[in-house]
C-alpha cells in the first residue's frame, strides 16, 4: 500500500513537470467596446494594434479601448459594408479590408478608411496579398479576380471566374491562399479545394470529396505545405504538398469522448500547434499532434480565429463570446486548497520530502502533493482529537519531525507516520500559567538544538539533555511574542507586539531594542549579508545590526501594503514577503522590489500571519485566506519590455486636434501661441495585462522631472508658453520592467506675431499695421480691466490675510519681546522696593496691547464669526479679568436657538461693548455676582444680557458717563439696540440686541 502511494507521488511529480502554469483568459465583449461578439478574424498590424473583425464592423484595440470602424451611409471614408470577409496588411503597412460590398484600404498614417473597389453589393470581396508585384488581388464571388495597383488602387485587370473555373459553379469562396509558386488555393463551398495555376491557367479540385460549408474551414500555408481544416472533413487537419498536390498526411484530434475535433482556426508556435475547433475548444499539441492539452476555456464555444501577438500572448476570437486574451501576467504560482471549504484560512505550512502540510484554520492539517493536488486531511486522523484544528506555528526538529503549536496543542509531529506527541502538559508542569493566544505563536530551534517557544508573553525553552528540560526563559511585560529568530551571533532575537528584544549578555536583562520602537512585529529574517529584516504591521525594516542603521519601506515608498506577514530568503538570496495586497520580492542589496497579486495567479491578495515555509528543494510556500501558494522562485519569470509606446490621441483645449495624421504617426506639431493647452493619451502595445502597464512622462522644455509612474495613460499641459517642447513617454509592463523613453511628439508653439522681430520691424514702417497694433492695444486694455474685476475679491481676501499675518508676526512678536525684556529688567535690576514698580505699568500696558491685538486678529482673520465662538471668547476674557478676585462670581448661560454668525466689524464693536460693560460692573459698580446670557434666534441674530448686583446709579440724575457714551456709539456702529436699566442699590442691567435682518 505504501509503495503504491509512493508511486502515485512520483507520477504526480512527473505530471507537475509537464503541467503548464495555469493560463487564464481575459474576455473582451461588446461591454468593453467591441461592436459585436462574433470574431471572424484577429490580426495584429505592424504598429501593434490588435484588429478584431466582427459581423458588425472592425475594432482596433490599442491596449486601452476598442476603436470601432463601421459602414456609414454616404461616408466614403467608412467601411463599404459591415459584412466582413478578410483583412491583410500589405508591405507598405496599408490594411486591405474585404467586405461583402467591396474592398477598402485603411491608412494607418491618417487613421482613415478609403473605399478602393467594388463589384457590387452582396458579392464577397476577398483581398489576397500579392504585394511583391505591387498588386492586390481581390477575389469577388461569382465574378472572378480583380487585380488592383497597390499604390493607386486602380484596377489593372480582371480575370472572370468563368475563365478559371469553367466547369464549376462558384457559389462562395470563404478561404483563399497563395502558395510559394504563386498558385492560388481556394476552398469553394459545396465543391472542394481548388488549385489554380496562374501561369498555366489550369484549375483542379484537389480534394473533391469534401463537403465544405461557410466559414468552418481553415487554410494555412507553410512553405510548400498547405494545412487544410474543414468542418465536414473526416479528419481534423489534412496536409498537402503544394507542388505535387499529394495529400501527405491526415491528423485527427479527438475530444475526451473520442469525437473528432473540427479545426476552424490554426496557429503555429515554437512547440507545435494551437488549434481552434468547432466542437472541442482550443487544443494545444506538439508538431506531430501528440500530447494534446485542452486550454482552460469554456467548452461549447466555436473558435474562428487565433493570434499570437508580438509579445507572445495568445488571442482567440469566438463565435458570439467576443475576444479572449491570455492573461500574460500569470506566473508559475500554484494554489493549494481543498474544494468546497470556505473560508480557507491557511495559518501555517510545513513540508516533508514528498508532501506539503497546510494548517488550515478550523479544518486541521490538509495534506497536498507537491503539484498542489489535495490528498487528505489529518483532522480526524488516528490520533482522533481535534488538536490540529488551530495550528499556527511549526519548526523543523529533525528529518522527520516538526514541532507544532496551536490553540490547543504543542508537541512533536512525525511526517513519516503522522503520529503526534503532546508536550503541553509537560510545559504546564513547569510553567503552570502559560497561555496560548489564538492565531499567535512563535517557534524557533537554534543551532544548539534548543527549541524556543513563545506562549503569549512567556518565552519557554526546551533543551535536549538526555530527557527534555523545560525552562521559562522570560516573561515580557505586556508584550506577546510574535516572532523568533537566531542571529548569527547565536543570540535569540524576540519580536513582540511591542518591538524587538535582546538579552543583555552583561546582566542577563532583556532589553527592548531602540531600532523600531514598539512597533508590532510579524516576522523576522536574516539576509545573506547578515542584515536583519523585520516585517511589522506598519512596514518592512532592514536593520544593520552592526551599525544599527535602520531603513524603512512602506506604502510611502511604493510598497503595495505595509502590513507585512512572512519574510523568507530564497536560494539566490532574494527576499519574498507576504502582505495584504499580495506577495513581493526584494533584492536585499539593491532594494529593487517586484510585486505580485491575484492578477499574477495568487490565491487572493490577503496572506496570513505565520503561514510561510521554505521546502528543502527551495520551493517557497505562502498561505493566505483562500489557500496556499507554492512556487519555485526561479520559475517566476519576468517579461522583458519590448513594446513600443504610442500616442493614441492628442487634444487641444480638451477637443481632439484636427489633423489629417493619426496621433501615433504624428512626429511634430506646430501651434500658435493661443493653442497652448494640450492633453495626450498614450498606450503601450504590451497586451499581456494592459491594466497593469505603467506610464511615466516628461515634457522636455517645461518639466524638470518625470511625472506619472501610474496606470493612468493621460497627461495634460495647460497654458504652455511659446517655445520648443519634446514629449517623452516610457512604459513598464505588467512585471514592472521599464522600457527606454520614447519621444512621441515634438511641439513648437510659435510666439504671438506681434512679438516677433519681423513684425516689430515692419510696425515702424507700416502705418496700416500700426492701426492693427492700436486695435490690439484696446483689446488688451479691455481684457485687463476684466481680469482686474475678477481679481478684486480675491485681492481683498488675501490683503486681509496679509494684515493679520503682519500683525501676528511683527507687532505681536515685538510686543511679546518688549514684555520679556521688561520682565527681565525687573528681575535683574531692582532699585525700588516700594509698593509699585514703575515698570509694572509698562508691563500691564504691553499685556493689554497684546490682548487687544489678539482680539482684533481673531475677528479680522475670518469672514464670519459664529456666535458660540464669540461667547467662548468672551467667557475666556471675563474669567481672565477676575483671575485674582476669587470672591467675584460670573455665571454664564447660553441659549442658541441657532448658531448665527457675525461679521468681523460687528464682532469687534460688540466685543468692546461687552468688555466695557463688564469693566463697569467690576471696577465702578463693585459687583460681586454677575450674570451673563448670550442667545440667538427668535428674531435676533445676537442677544447679550448682563445683570450685576453692584451699586447701580440713578439714571435720571447721572447722565451717561464716558464709558456708557462709548457703548452707545459702538452699538450704533454695529446696528445694535442697547437698553440699560439701573437704579441705586438695584444693580445694572444691560441688554444688547442685533435684530435679524429682514429680507
Amino acid at each position, binding site marked *: 500500500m505504501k509503495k503504491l502511494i509512493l508511486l502515485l507521488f512520483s507520477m504526480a511529480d512527473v505530471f507537475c513537470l509537464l503541467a503548464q502554469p495555469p493560463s487564464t483568459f481575459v474576455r473582451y465583449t461588446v461591454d468593453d467596446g467591441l461592436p459585436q461578439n462574433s470574431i471572424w478574424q484577429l490580426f495584429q498590424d505592424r504598429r501593434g494594434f490588435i484588429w478584431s473583425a466582427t459581423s458588425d464592423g472592425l475594432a482596433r484595440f490599442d491596449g486601452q479601448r476598442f476603436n470601432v470602424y463601421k459602414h456609414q451611409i454616404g461616408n466614403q471614408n467608412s467601411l463599404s459594408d459591415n459584412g466582413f470577409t478578410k483583412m491583410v496588411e500589405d508591405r507598405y503597412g496599408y490594411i486591405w479590408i474585404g467586405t461583402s460590398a467591396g474592398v477598402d484600404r485603411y491608412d494607418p498614417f491618417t487613421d482613415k478608411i478609403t473605399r478602393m473597389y467594388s463589384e457590387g453589393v452582396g458579392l464577397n470581396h476577398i483581398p489576397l496579398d500579392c504585394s511583391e508585384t505591387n498588386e492586390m488581388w481581390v477575389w469577388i464571388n461569382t465574378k472572378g479576380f480583380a487585380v488592383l495597383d497597390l499604390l493607386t488602387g486602380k484596377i489593372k485587370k480582371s480575370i472572370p471566374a468563368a475563365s478559371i473555373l469553367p466547369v464549376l459553379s462558384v457559389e462562395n469562396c470563404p478561404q483563399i491562399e497563395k502558395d510559394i509558386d504563386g498558385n492560388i488555393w481556394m476552398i469553394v463551398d459545396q465543391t472542394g479545394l481548388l488549385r489554380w495555376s496562374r501561369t498555366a491557367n489550369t484549375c483542379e479540385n484537389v480534394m473533391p470529396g469534401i463537403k465544405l460549408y461557410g466559414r468552418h474551414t481553415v487554410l494555412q500555408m507553410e512553405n510548400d505545405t498547405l494545412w487544410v481544416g474543414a468542418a465536414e472533413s473526416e479528419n481534423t487537419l489534412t496536409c498537402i504538398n503544394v507542388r505535387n498536390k499529394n495529400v501527405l498526411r491526415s491528423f485527427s484530434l479527438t475530444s475526451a469522448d473520442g469525437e473528432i475535433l473540427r479545426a476552424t482556426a490554426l496557429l503555429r508556435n515554437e512547440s507545435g500547434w494551437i488549434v481552434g475547433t468547432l466542437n472541442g475548444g482550443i487544443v494545444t499539441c506538439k508538431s506531430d499532434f501528440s500530447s494534446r492539452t485542452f486550454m482552460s476555456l469554456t467548452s461549447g464555444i466555436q473558435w474562428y480565429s487565433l493570434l499570437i501577438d508580438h509579445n507572445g500572448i495568445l488571442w482567440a476570437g469566438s463565435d458570439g463570446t467576443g475576444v479572449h486574451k491570455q492573461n500574460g501576467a500569470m506566473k508559475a504560482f500554484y494554489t493549494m486548497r481543498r474544494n468546497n471549504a470556505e473560508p480557507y484560512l491557511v495559518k501555517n505550512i510545513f513540508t516533508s520530502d514528498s508532501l506539503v502540510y497546510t494548517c488550515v484554520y478550523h479544518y486541521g492539517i490538509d495534506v497536498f502533493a507537491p503539484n498542489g493536488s489535495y490528498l487528505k486531511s489529518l483532522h480526524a486522523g488516528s490520533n482522533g482529537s481535534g488538536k490540529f484544528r488551530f495550528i499556527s506555528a511549526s519548526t523543523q526538529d529533525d528529518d522527520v519531525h516538526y514541532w507544532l503549536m496551536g490553540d490547543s496543542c504543542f508537541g512533536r509531529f512525525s511526517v513519516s507516520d503522522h503520529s503526534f506527541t503532546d508536550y503541553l502538559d509537560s510545559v504546564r508542569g513547569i510553567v503552570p500559567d502559560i497561555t496560548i493566544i489564538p492565531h499567535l505563536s512563535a517557534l524557533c530551534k537554534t543551532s544548539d538544538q534548543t527549541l524556543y517557544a513563545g506562549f503569549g508573553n512567556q518565552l519557554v525553552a526546551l533543551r535536549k539533555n538526555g530527557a527534555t528540560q523545560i525552562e521559562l526563559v522570560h516573561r515580557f511585560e505586556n508584550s506577546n511574542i510574535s516572532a523568533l529568530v537566531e542571529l548569527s551571533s547565536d543570540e535569540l532575537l524576540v519580536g513582540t507586539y511591542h518591538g524587538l528584544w535582546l538579552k543583555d549578555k552583561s546582566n542577563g536583562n532583556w532589553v527592548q531594542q531602540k531600532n523600531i520602537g514598539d512597533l508590532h512585529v510579524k516576522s523576522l529574517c536574516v539576509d545573506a549579508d547578515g542584515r536583519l529584516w523585520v516585517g511589522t504591521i*506598519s512596514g518592512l525594516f532592514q536593520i544593520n545590526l552592526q551599525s544599527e542603521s535602520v531603513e524603512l519601506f512602506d506604502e510611502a515608498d511604493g510598497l503595495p501594503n505595509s502590513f507585512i506577514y512572512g519574510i523568507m530568503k530564497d536560494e539566490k538570496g532574494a527576499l519574498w514577503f507576504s502582505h495584504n495586497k499580495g506577495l513581493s520580492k526584494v533584492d536585499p542589496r539593491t532594494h529593487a522590489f517586484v510585486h505580485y497579486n491575484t492578477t499574477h495567479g495568487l490565491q487572493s491578495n490577503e496572506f496570513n500571519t505565520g503561514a510561510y515555509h521554505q521546502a528543502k528543494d527551495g520551493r517557497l510556500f505562502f498561505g493566505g485566506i483562500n489557500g496556499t501558494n507554492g512556487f519555485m522562485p526561479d520559475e517566476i519569470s519576468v517579461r522583458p519590455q519590448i513594446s513600443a509606446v504610442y500616442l493614441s490621441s492628442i487634444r487641444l483645449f480638451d477637443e481632439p486636434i484636427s489633423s489629417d495624421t493619426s496621433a501615433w504617426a504624428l512626429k511634430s506639431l506646430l501651434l500658435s501661441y493661443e493653442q497652448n493647452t494640450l492633453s495626450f493619451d498614450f498606450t503601450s502595445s504590451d497586451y499581456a495585462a494592459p491594466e497593469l502597464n505603467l506610464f511615466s512622462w516628461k515634457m522636455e522644455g517645461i518639466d524638470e522631472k518625470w511625472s506619472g509612474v501610474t496606470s493612468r495613460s493621460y497627461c495634460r499641459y495647460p497654458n504652455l508658453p511659446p517655445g520648443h517642447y519634446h514629449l517623452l513617454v516610457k512604459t513598464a509592463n505588467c512585471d514592472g520592467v521599464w522600457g527606454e523613453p520614447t519621444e512621441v511628439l515634438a511641439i513648437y508653439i510659435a510666439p504671438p506675431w506681434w512679438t516677433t522681430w519681423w513684425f516689430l520691424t515692419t510696425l515702424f514702417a507700416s502705418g496700416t499695421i500700426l492701426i492693427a497694433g492700436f486695435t490690439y492695444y484696446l483689446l488688451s486694455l479691455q481684457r485687463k480691466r476684466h481680469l482686474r474685476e475678477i481679481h478684486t475679491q480675491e485681492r481683498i481676501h488675501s490683503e486681509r490675510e496679509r494684515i493679520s499675518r503682519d500683525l501676528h508676526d511683527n507687532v505681536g512678536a515685538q510686543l511679546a519681546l518688549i514684555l520679556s525684556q521688561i520682565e527681565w529688567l525687573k528681575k535683574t535690576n531692582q532699585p525700588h522696593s516700594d509698593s509699585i514698580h514703575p515698570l509694572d505699568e509698562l508691563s500691564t500696558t504691553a499685556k493689554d496691547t497684546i490682548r487687544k491685538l489678539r482680539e482684533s486678529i481673531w475677528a479680522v482673520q475670518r469672514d464670519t464669526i459664529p456666535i458660540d465662538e464669540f461667547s467662548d471668547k468672551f467667557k475666556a476674557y471675563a474669567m481672565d479679568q477676575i483671575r485674582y478676585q476669587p470672591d467675584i462670581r460670573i455665571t454664564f448661560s447660553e441659549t442658541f436657538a441657532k448658531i448665527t454668525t457675525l461679521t468681523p466689524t460687528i464682532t469687534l464693536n460688540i466685543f468692546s461693548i461687552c468688555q466695557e460693560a463688564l469693566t463697569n460692573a467690576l471696577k465702578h459698580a463693585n459687583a460681586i455676582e454677575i450674570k451673563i446670557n448670550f442667545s440667538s434666534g427668535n428674531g435676533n441674530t445676537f442677544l447679550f444680557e448682563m445683570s450685576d448686583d453692584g451699586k447701580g446709579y440713578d439714571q435720571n440724575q447721572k447722565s451717561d458717563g464716558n464709558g456708557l457714551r462709548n457703548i452707545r456709539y459702538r452699538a450704533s456702529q454695529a446696528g445694535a439696540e442697547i437698553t440699560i436699566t439701573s437704579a441705586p442699590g438695584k444693580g445694572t442691567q444691560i441688554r444688547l440686541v442685533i435684530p435679524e435682518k429682514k429680507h
Partner: protein
Amino acid sequence: MPLTIAIVDDKAVIRRSMEQKLCDGVKVKLALTAGDGDEFLKKMKALPIAQHPQVVLMDIDMPVMNGIETVAVASVLYPATRFLMLTVFDDDEKIFNAVKSGASGYLLKEEDATTILEALYQVVEGGGAPMSPRIARKTLSLLMKSDLPKSSAEGDPNSDPLSPREKEILQRLIDGYNYKRIAEELFISPNTVRNHMANIYEKLHVRSKVEAVKIGIRKKWF
C-alpha cells in the same frame, strides 16, 4: 530634585528671557533649548535618558518643523516627557491641534513667571492644565463622536468614551467656570478636577504612534 525643562522657540531672545524668567537653577533647571522641532529631536536623541526634560515649553509656529508636528513625534518617542504649548496668539485651531498631537496644555507667552511655573508643576504632577471654554467645547464635540480612531485591538484607554464626570467637567468649562468653582459645584477637590482634566487630555491624544515612530526612523531622530 529640581524640575527640568526644555524651551523650544525660534526666537533666541524669547528663549533667553524664558530661561531667565523660569530657571533659577535650584527649583527649575534647563535641560536644553532648541530653535525648531528638528533641532529639538536631534538634541533629545543625543541626551541620556536621565537628563531628559520633564516638561517642554514649545512654540507653535516655528520654521523647519512646527510645534504641532514636533509634539506629535516627540510625545511618542519620549512618553515620559510632557509638552506645554507657548503661543502669542490664541489661535484655537492650532492649539486644539497641538493638544490632539500630544500636548498637555497651553499658555500664552506673556503670562508671568508664577502662572507658567504653576502650569509646569501641574502637568509634572499629572494634572491637566486649564482649558478655555472654546477648547473645552471642541474637546467635547470631538470626544462625543463615536467614530474615534482606535489605534489597536488591545485595550487602549484612548478608545474609551468620556466618563459622565468628565462630561460634567467639560460642560462647566464651556460655561466659563474655573477649576476651583467646578470643584465647589461638583463637591470634589480642585486636584480631582485636575486629574480628570489629565484624563481628558490623554483621550484627546489621537496621534498615530506608528506614524510617529516611522517618521522618527526616517529622519534619524530615533
